[in-house]
């Protein structure tokens, strides 16, 4: 209990004596400085990427290029209309993509559950263990899945296996983090009760903590399956299997009509999986929330055969577990991964492989450290002009895309929020628009735009911004729908117009979510823009793929570290800013 000294309480003067504006205190100064820094960086990014120059972006020259791309020239066929000549193969590859996502999600879940218990403040055996677990989770979140795939392809060669590992390893970053957060928010009481009766640590976890987080875990896993499927569609671009490999095959032959057919099939599949995971998640969690609410008659219970009643939740959970096991086995069959070659990649061999042999994971991991162990000197000079330029290009691309995307998504999100949209028709059509914008993988948009618009940063910015419209629009709209209606009733009751209600009753409540999600989008975009270079859209990814293809692992690792640092700084900054806003 703190006692406030009367002398420290400022007594407000009469209204005519004080200027009635918010006090210019430390928090406000920090917020203003952050806004200024972000605005300056956004301006710099838009200038550096060249996207500001709309006359060139939409000029005669680029219009011709796009027309040639779409309708073809005498030398090559156009992209329109999209065509599918090998439907069987296409279907096979889409299924392979799905099963890569399933196996990757499973792998990530299996790794994340123990990791989350080690990483949560209240369940970790030791602070050092917690720091290491949190570090590993942050690392796998920071490194884009495409880059993991790129590295794993060096070890496991082309095929679905590196894809599964990349998806799995990257997903630990999100699944592990959300699970650890859920554990930290759990009630310590039940666990204390088990400790107080002499239960072991494992029993405290299994019976005191785990039951509390089951619904959250289920939701997280199903949500991630959806994200993983989207991610799996582009892994083929770096040789890690799935429908992306077909896209690469067709674009290599300059058959853009076939490539566009693949894209259309991908979009349909993404929408289907989105629906699937959403419905399964809702069905499970809704049944969970109503499970066990009914009182059972004593006569219905046979004391010699006491078992929980088989209600909707238990039936659905059982179906979910059986279906997951079935899908996992199916993915083992469909992707035809070899468990033996997986373990062969893990063999304890730190040295260089014999000629003709693939290197071990450990060898590649060691070589990824930008350090020469023979001479004890750092290998990677991150301040050399190439790296510097590529790094700034990447940051600018991510920043510009986030800025433009958020600016476009924000007005849309008001139309896509059920409680604010002017009409049901507007709400539904905006939602469909957002879903479609989200369904096309950014990397594929980037490939298409690079061909259509030429090299440079602009295609990357446009591709990422389009993704932001879909993803950000959905996040913002959901946040607006979550706004409590109390303040709105207050504003409406004084006779405010619809617009005033939205401006005063809704927007102030939505601002913290807007800033939080906006910074999250910025963070994702800088990570994504680091990958764009792999498909020719400039930035640090171009260097990265160059180094990897020439087996210069040390430089690759150096670049990964630079990306890690940049993303880490942005994450810290957004945490810092969020605390000040709420």
């Amino acid at each position, binding site marked *: 209990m703190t006692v406030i000294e009367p002398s420290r309480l400022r007594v407000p003067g009469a209204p005519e004596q004080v200027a009635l504006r918010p006090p210019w205190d430390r928090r406000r100064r920090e917020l203003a400085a952050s806004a200024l820094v972000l605005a300056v960086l956004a301006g710099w990014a838009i200038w550096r990427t060249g996207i500001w120059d709309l006359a060139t972006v939409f000029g005669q020259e680029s219009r011709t290029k796009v027309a040639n791309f779409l309708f073809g020239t005498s030398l090559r066929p156009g992209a329109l209309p999209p065509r599918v000549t090998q439907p069987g193969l296409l279907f096979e590859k889409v299924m392979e993509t799905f099963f890569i996502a399933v196996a990757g999600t499973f792998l990530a879940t299996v790794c994340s559950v123990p990791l989350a218990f080690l990483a949560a403040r209240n369940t970790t055996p030791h602070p050092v263990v917690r720091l290491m677990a949190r570090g590993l989770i942050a690392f796998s979140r920071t490194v884009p899945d495409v880059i993991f795939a790129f590295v794993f392809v060096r070890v496991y060669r082309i095929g679905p296996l590196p894809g599964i590992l990349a998806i799995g390893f990257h997903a630990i970053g999100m699944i592990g983090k959300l699970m650890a957060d859920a554990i930290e928010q759990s009630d310590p009481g039940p666990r204390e009760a088990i400790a107080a009766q002499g239960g072991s640590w494992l029993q405290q976890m299994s019976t005191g903590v785990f039951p509390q987080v089951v619904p959250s875990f289920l939701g997280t896993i199903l949500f991630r399956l959806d994200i993983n499927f989207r991610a799996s569609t582009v892994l083929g671009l770096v040789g890690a299997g799935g429908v992306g490999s077909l896209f690469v095959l067709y674009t290599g032959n300059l058959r853009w009509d076939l490539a566009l057919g693949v894209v259309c099939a991908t979009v349909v599949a993404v929408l289907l999986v989105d629906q699937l995971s959403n419905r399964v998640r809702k069905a499970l969690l809704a049944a969970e929330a109503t499970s066990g*609410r009914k009182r059972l008659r004593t006569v219905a219970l046979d004391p010699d055969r006491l078992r929980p009643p088989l209600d909707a939740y238990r039936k659905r959970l059982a179906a979910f577990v059986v279906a997951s096991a079935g899908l996992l086995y199916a993915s083992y069959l469909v992707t035809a991964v070899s468990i033996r070659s997986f373990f062969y990649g893990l063999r304890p061999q730190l040295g260089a492989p014999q000629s003709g042999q693939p290197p071990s994971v450990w060898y590649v991991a060691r070589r990824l450290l930008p350090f020469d162990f023979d001479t004890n000197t750092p290998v990677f000079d991150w301040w050399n002009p190439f790296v510097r330029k590529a790094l700034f290009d990447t940051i600018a691309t991510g920043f510009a895309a986030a800025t433009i995307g958020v600016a476009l998504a924000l007005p849309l999100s008001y139309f896509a929020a059920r409680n604010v949209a002017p009409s049901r028709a507007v709400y539904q059509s905006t939602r469909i628009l957002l879903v479609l914008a989200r369904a096309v993988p950014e990397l594929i948009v980037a490939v298409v735009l690079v061909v259509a618009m030429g090299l440079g940063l602009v295609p990357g910015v446009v591709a990422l911004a389009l993704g932001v419209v879909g993803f950000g629009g959905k996040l913002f709209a959901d946040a607006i729908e979550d706004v409590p209606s109390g303040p709105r009733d207050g504003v409406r009751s004084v006779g405010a117009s619809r617009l005033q209600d939205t401006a005063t009753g809704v927007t102030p409540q939505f601002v913290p979510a807007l800033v939080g999600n906006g910074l999250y989008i910025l963070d994702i975009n800088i990570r994504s823009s680091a990958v764009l270079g792999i498909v020719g859209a400039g930035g640090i990814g171009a260097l990265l793929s160059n180094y990897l293809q020439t087996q210069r692992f040390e430089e690759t690792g150096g670049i990964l570290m630079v990306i890690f640092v940049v993303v880490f700084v942005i994450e810290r900054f957004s945490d810092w800013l969020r605390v000040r806003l709420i």
Partner: protein
Amino acid sequence: MNEPAIRITKLRKEFDGGRVVALDDVSFEVPAGQLLVIIGLSGSGKSTLLRHLNRLHEPTSGQVEVLGCDLGRAGRSELRRVRRDVGFVFQQFNIVGRLSALENVLSGALGRLRGPRYGVMTYSQSLRRQAWEQLDRVGLADRAFQRTDTLSGGQQQRVAIARTLMQQPKIVLADEPVASLDPEISGQVMEVLFRVTSEDRLTVVTSLHQVELALGWAQRMVGLRDGKVVLDRDAAGLSTEEVMKVYTRLDPDGEKRAEYRAVSA
């Protein structure tokens, strides 16, 4: 067997590096089978004392012996063995809200079992039957498969009592078990607790705010004020006035005020 169930010797507990003294030179014994009620103001050290009896707190100095085991010297496995014989009923129930009543009661058997458990069906049928019988004793047999967060506060605490009984303890410690319940429900819950523990001839140490309830059931009462024992008598013949003295603040406007504030913070 004349060995007391609990023996506390010169127990002292400081928080904040000695700035707050929660327990000051507390010594007493509890013979097996006694029902002892601890009374005192909020912050007088009741909870702290109870939590020492299970070593949920480490003493600053002094000794706590439970069932012949010196808790301060007990190793991990020995501590766990003692804890198996000591049930603890918490003020906030400490049950898992989304699990069924039966599953919460079953978790009381964990101390006797090896390995982690999750789900009713991971316990044997005979344990399930035992758990259901304990639920029956607290009057909740028909709620066995209901989620505990849909039960009322009094029912939830009865589930917690059944869980403690499931442990087959020798001692039951209860830390203000009815402090978050309304008066009528409090009476019902305490009655359940006292009835089942006397049926099983258990040693009970509980802290309680309701003096009337305490006088009705307790065999012995211990009063705490500022971490010191200020009352320790058989409950028979104890008058309400004598008990209420424990609750009067000493010189409420004098120099001790700062201390009261620190303790209650």
